C-alpha cells in the first residue's frame, strides 16, 4: 500500500489567539516497502504529520490516502504504555481488540515477540515491568506488530536507550522491514541513523515539507540543513571541518565508513 499525502494542512486552535499552523500544505508519497525517515527540529510538525498518516487527527484541509487499518504507530517512550501482568498478555491486547480470539491473539503475539527478539517461551510469563529498558521497548513494539500492520510508524524509537540498545532496536526494525516487506516511517533526530537506514528522507521545517529526496541528495545540502537547525551525519560533519581547515577531501563523505575511506 502506498501512502499519498495531498496538500495536508493542520491548524491547532483555529480562530483562537494561539492559532498555530502545525502543517502547511504538505504533499508527499511514501511507497510500499520503503524505509522513510522524517527529520526536523522540535516543533517542526513531524509528530503531527505521522499522526495524520496514522489517522489520529482530522485534517483542517487536504487529505491522506491510506488504509488506516494497515498502519501501526509506536509512540515516543512506548514502554509507558505497557500495563498488563505479563509480557504475552500485553502483546495480546492489540489483536484481541481487533476481534481475534484468545488462541489466535496468542499466536500473533508470539510471532510478534519472536520478531523483536524476545523468546515468548522464556519471557512471555514475566511482568513487563521487570525487563530492561531496551527489552520493554521491544515488547511495546511487538504490541503494535501483533496487529499485523503493513506500515509501521516509529516516533523516535531509540530516545533514552543506551548505545547498544539504540543500535539493537534499529537493526531489529531494519530486519523486520526486510522479512515482512513492511513500510517503515521513522521520526528521528539522529542523522547517522537516517543516513544508514533510510531510503527516503522528508525534511520538515515550520510545518512545511522543505526537502523530499534520497538521504544522499538531502545530506548534500548540508548548509540548508544546518540553516534550519538540523545536524549532518557524523562523517560529513568531520569532513566539512577538515575541508574548512584546508584538508583536501575530494570524495563525498557522509558516513563513518566514508570518512575512514577518505582518510586511509
Amino acid at each position, binding site marked *: 500500500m502506498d501512502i499519498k499525502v495531498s496538500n495536508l494542512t493542520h491548524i491547532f486552535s483555529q480562530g483562537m489567539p494561539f492559532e498555530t499552523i502545525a502543517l502547511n500544505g504538505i504533499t508527499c508519497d511514501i511507497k510500499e516497502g520503503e524505509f522513510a525517515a522524517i527529520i526536523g527540529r522540535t516543533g517542526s510538525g513531524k509528530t503531527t504529520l505521522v499522526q495524520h498518516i496514522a489517522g489520529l487527527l482530522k485534517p483542517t484541509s487536504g487529505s491522506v490516502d491510506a488504509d488506516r487499518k494497515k498502519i501501526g504507530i509506536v509512540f515516543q517512550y512506548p514502554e509507558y504504555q505497557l500495563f498488563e501482568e505479563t509480557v504475552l498478555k500485553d502483546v495480546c491486547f492489540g489483536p484481541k481488540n481487533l476481534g481475534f480470539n484468545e488462541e489466535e491473539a496468542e499466536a500473533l503475539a508470539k510471532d510478534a515477540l519472536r520478531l523483536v527478539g524476545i523468546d515468548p517461551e522464556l519471557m512471555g510469563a514475566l511482568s513487563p515491568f521487570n525487563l530492561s*529498558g531496551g527489552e520493554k521497548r521491544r515488547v511495546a513494539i511487538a504490541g503494535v506488530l501483533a496487529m499485523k500492520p503493513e506500515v509501521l510508524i516509529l516516533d523516535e524509537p531509540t530516545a533514552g536507550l543506551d548505545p*547498544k540498545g539504540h543500535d539493537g532496536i534499529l537493526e531489529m526494525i531494519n530486519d523486520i522491514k526486510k522479512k515482512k516487506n513492511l513500510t517503515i516511517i521513522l521520526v528521528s533526530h539522529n542523522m547517522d541513523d537516517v543516513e544508514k537506514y533510510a531510503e527516503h528522507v522528508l525534511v520538515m521545517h515550520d510545518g512545511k515539507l522543505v526537502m523530499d529526496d534520497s538521504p544522499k541528495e538531502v545530506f548534500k545540502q548540508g548548509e540548508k540543513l544546518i540553516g534550519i537547525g538540523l545536524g549532518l551525519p557524523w562523517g560529513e560533519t568531520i569532513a566539512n571541518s577538515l575541508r574548512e581547515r584546508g584538508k583536501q577531501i575530494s570524495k563525498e563523505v557522509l558516513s563513518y565508513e566514508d570518512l575512514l575511506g577518505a582518510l586511509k
Partner: protein
Amino acid sequence: MADNILKIENLGYDYETEDENGEVIKNVALKDISFEVKKGCFVAIVGSNGSGKSTLAKNLNALFVPSRGRVLVCDMDTKEADPIDIRSKVGMVFQNPDNQLVSSVVEDDVAFGPENLGVDPKEIRDRVDEALSKVSMTEHRKKGPHLLSGGQKQRIAIAGVLAMQTECIVFDEPTAMLDPSGRKEIMDIIEELHKEGKTVILITHFMEEAARADEVIVLNKGEILFDGSPKKLFTKDNQELLDKANLKMPMAASLAAELGFKDVVTDEELINAALK
C-alpha cells in the same frame, strides 16, 4: 573548604517494594560505590539502562539518602544535614525539562530555586538576570515556557539551577529529548560552565559527550566498572568492558584507532590529528 565537592564512600542503595503479602522486597540498585569529585572537575557517568546512573545522581543532592555507606557534599553527610544546605551546593537538571519547569513565566521559573533557598528578593532579581543571560534567554524572560522549543526549555531549567549558585550541577541525560541543535546548545553551555570553574557531573548515553569530560565513571549493575580519563576508557583494549556495559566507543575514538592515531577521543582531537 575541602577540595572535594563530593565524597562518596561505599554507597549502597536499595529500592524497597512490597509483594502481595506485604513482605518487603529489596532491589539493590547501587553496591559499594566510592569516588570523589574535586572542585571544578567535569565527570561523566555512563552505563546501560538500569545500571544505576539516575539512582546515583539522586543520591548526590539528597533526593535519595544512602541505604549503606555515605555521601558527603562539601563535608556534609546527606543523611544528617538539612537538605536545603545540600541543595544549595549541588543542583540538578533532569532529562525532561517539562518535569522541572514550575511557573507560567520564564523569569518566575528561574526565581523559584533561589526563593526556596531564602535569598533576598533584590539579589534574586540580579541572579535571575545573570542566569538568563548566561544561557542566552534574556529576550524570552516574559514568555511562557510552553511556547519555547525543547532546547530553550532545557536552557531555562539550567538557568534555574544557575540562579541557585550551587558549586556543582548534576545533569541527568539533559540532551536525550532534544534535536541536534538543542543538543549542541546544551553541551556548549555545559562546557562553558565547566571552563568557568563549575563542577559538572553529566549522566549520558552519548559517548561523544562523555569523551569531552575530564573523568568518566562506568556503572554496570550498580557497581563501578571503570573510573578514569576518557582517553584511558575509550581504547580498543577496553572493548570487552565497553560491551559488558552496553557502551560503544565514540566515533572519533573508533576511527582514530583504525587510522592509528593515538590519544584521540573527541571530534576536535580527531580533526587535529588528521590535519597533521
